[in-house]
């Protein structure tokens, strides 16, 4: 027998086949149906917005991130999610800037993948919300020709965008400022005004369920967010009819996208399963408080960002009970 060329590695010598890039790219791929749905409702504009934000995110990761960090796919997810959370009529340079800001200040500056405290896509969106409050709250009506632009997408930076597109308020805006309820069927299907990807709740739910089934998404935080929002708002509605009912709250605005894709970003939500329940319930409550009592019609973004800040604390107080330690405490 000839001596084989042997290597020596540490145990365990077997490895589950899932890898971080595989998880990230699968999550990114699962967004394709959501993107297609948004293209169906808003035409080519939504594709252009997503392209712009993704390009901004990828180029920033390439330029500032660690060598080869593009391959792990997380920058792709940030770009896609940011694009999906923007209105379809936003000028493309703003979308790209948002992607760049999200990756640069939301991730790379913290030390890259796994180190950031806040969801990079939401950092990008929060930046745009503060910098361009008008552009980010101009909501074109869905429908119309596929190739009709939903706004002055090709506006030059810092020029006043010229737009004669029909706009309409989002269901939440309608409710908040005009006390008009949108039908839940419209909300579920997505035939309402809103961000690129936050309109079709049902498509997001299906994609999320697929990811949960694959084990790439922990179902605890989205489920607890949705249940909390439903229960809390239903209770408010029960005591005072002027508040919206639970179903409307669950299916409107960016809640579905936020709960399924942003409150499940492994890096910025608690690691423990108990912690994910805590995170979800608190996020849900903040969403309801902002939407019902706050000045803004929508609060998912801030709710998740606020809870991101609490993630280390939640982790600390929800550590699992180590095997064999319960009895020890009793003995003492």
């Amino acid at each position: 027998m000839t001596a084989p060329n042997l290597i020596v590695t540490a145990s365990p010598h077997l490895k589950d086949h899932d890898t971080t890039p595989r998880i990230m790219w699968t999550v990114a791929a699962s967004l394709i149906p959501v993107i297609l749905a948004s293209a169906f409702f808003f035409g080519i504009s939504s594709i252009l917005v997503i392209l712009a934000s993704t390009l901004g995110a990828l180029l920033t990761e390439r330029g500032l991130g660690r060598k080869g960090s593009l391959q792990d796919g997380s920058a792709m997810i940030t770009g896609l999610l940011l694009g999906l959370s923007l209105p379809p009529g936003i000028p493309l340079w703003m979308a790209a800037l948002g992607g760049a800001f999200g990756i640069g200040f939301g991730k790379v500056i913290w030390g890259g993948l796994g180190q950031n405290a806040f969801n990079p896509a939401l950092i990008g969106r929060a930046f745009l919300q503060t910098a361009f409050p008008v552009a980010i709250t101009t909501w074109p009506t869905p429908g119309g020709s596929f190739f009709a632009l939903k706004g002055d997408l090709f506006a030059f930076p810092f020029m006043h965008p010229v737009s004669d597109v029909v706009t309409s308020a989002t269901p939440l805006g309608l409710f908040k400022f005009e006390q008009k309820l949108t039908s839940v069927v419209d909300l579920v299907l997505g035939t309402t005004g809103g961000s690129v990807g936050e309109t079709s709740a049902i498509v997001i739910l299906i994609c999320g369920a697929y990811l949960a089934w694959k084990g790439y998404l922990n179902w605890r935080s989205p489920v607890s967010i949705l249940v909390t929002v439903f229960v809390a708002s239903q209770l408010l509605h029960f005591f005072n009819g002027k508040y919206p009912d639970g179903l409307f709250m669950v299916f409107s605005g960016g809640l579905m996208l936020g709960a399924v894709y942003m409150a499940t970003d492994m890096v910025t939500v608690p690691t423990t399963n108990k912690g994910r329940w805590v995170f979800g319930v608190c996020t849900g409550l903040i969403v309801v408080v902002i939407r019902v009592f706050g000045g803004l019609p929508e609060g998912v973004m801030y709710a998740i960002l606020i809870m991101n800040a609490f993630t280390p604390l939640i982790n600390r107080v929800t550590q699992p009970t180590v095997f064999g330690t319960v009895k020890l405490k009793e003995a003492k």
Partner: protein
Amino acid sequence: MAFFGFAHGVHPPEEKGLTSGLPIRRMPYPAEIVLPLRQHAGKPAKLCVKVGDYVERGDPVGLADGYMSVPIHASAAGTVTAIDLWPHPDGSYAQSVHIKVDTYAMQAARPRLVPRWEGLTVDQVVKAVQDAGVVGLGGAAFPTHVKLAPPKDYKVHTLIINGAECEPYLTSDHRTMVEYPERVHFGCRVMMHTLGVTKAVIGVEKNKPDAIEALERTRPKDLDITILPLTVKYPQGAEKMLIHAVTGVEVPSGKLPVTVGVVVQNVGSLAAIAEVFDTGLPLIERIVTVTGHGLTRPANLIVPVGTKLKDLLAYCDGVTKDASEVINGGPMMGMAVANLEAPVLKGTTGIVVLTKDEVRNEKVYPCIHCGRCLDACPVFLNPSWLGDLARVKRYDEMAANHLADCMLCGSCSYVCPSNIPLSQLFQASKVALRRTQTAGAA
């Protein structure tokens, strides 16, 4: 039929089909046998032969050095040709006795080296087991006689026998239970008598129905022995997990199983006790699963202790072209062998040859805090957090977070999508921690 198990754990591919249907066969003696004096947990044996001595099969070459030690016996007749430092399967070098096997040795009639069991007092059984060099054959090689005489402060009520064999690839315990169920029961009888317990439970993972059937068929009617099917999950065979599955009790952190009135033995060790009392020969050979996709002819073999791995692999027609790593033990907790000159020890459960495609060589990514290791850890640690601490060398904080409860089962490393060598980090941290503690005490 109800199945018993534990929370968490992982499901690595079993790969037991390579050898689970193959009967145990005897391997012929190699030309030379190498017996390291350090084969068991505790103190190494004390050398008692010199170069040029002729030893018979079963003669001691090393004597027990104190209570936490067992003797080492020659596994073949022959001449001691050298005593030197020789490669040990754990990667180090150990004092070893080389025996040139006498091919034409006469098996002359000799008096029994181990007395008959019948009529022995408890102390005599414990002494006989120690003198026969019996250790736990499940891998850790903990001296069996120490487990036979637990501290008097505790009342032992149940003997638990570990037939889980949760490591992938390995089938030596499985084949022992299928082919020698009477020996398992006989060993069980000896242990129950010695420990003074009336109840024994044999836990077997339910993926070995033939083993469960064989044990049921041969179960002695006068003893209270239960055969308990367990869920198939890694690490079901870990001592604390097994006790929890059988009794529902958690062994307190940092305590021995005896504190909850339980003693755990491996089925292979029981069969060894039975064989020792049966044949009158000490423990000089064991059943080894030689397997893996990188091996030409996988087999379950009775191997003389001290057979060099290269001879063992050669007997199995050698390794294939894409063989890449040889593991001493199972692929989850076993150690990669650096030198095939190293011999088979009493604690060698199996030799697994992995191919290029199976070995881990992926890139390590940053921890994304996905929490999979938390869901995998059988003792409910937070490996993700411990891993972060290990990287910045905050060992004291790791100790406060129950690093000592980690049994290095490797479940966290197995599931980690970022390919972080968590279990390796913990092993290194444990060593570093021990070093700082000894330095602090001095």
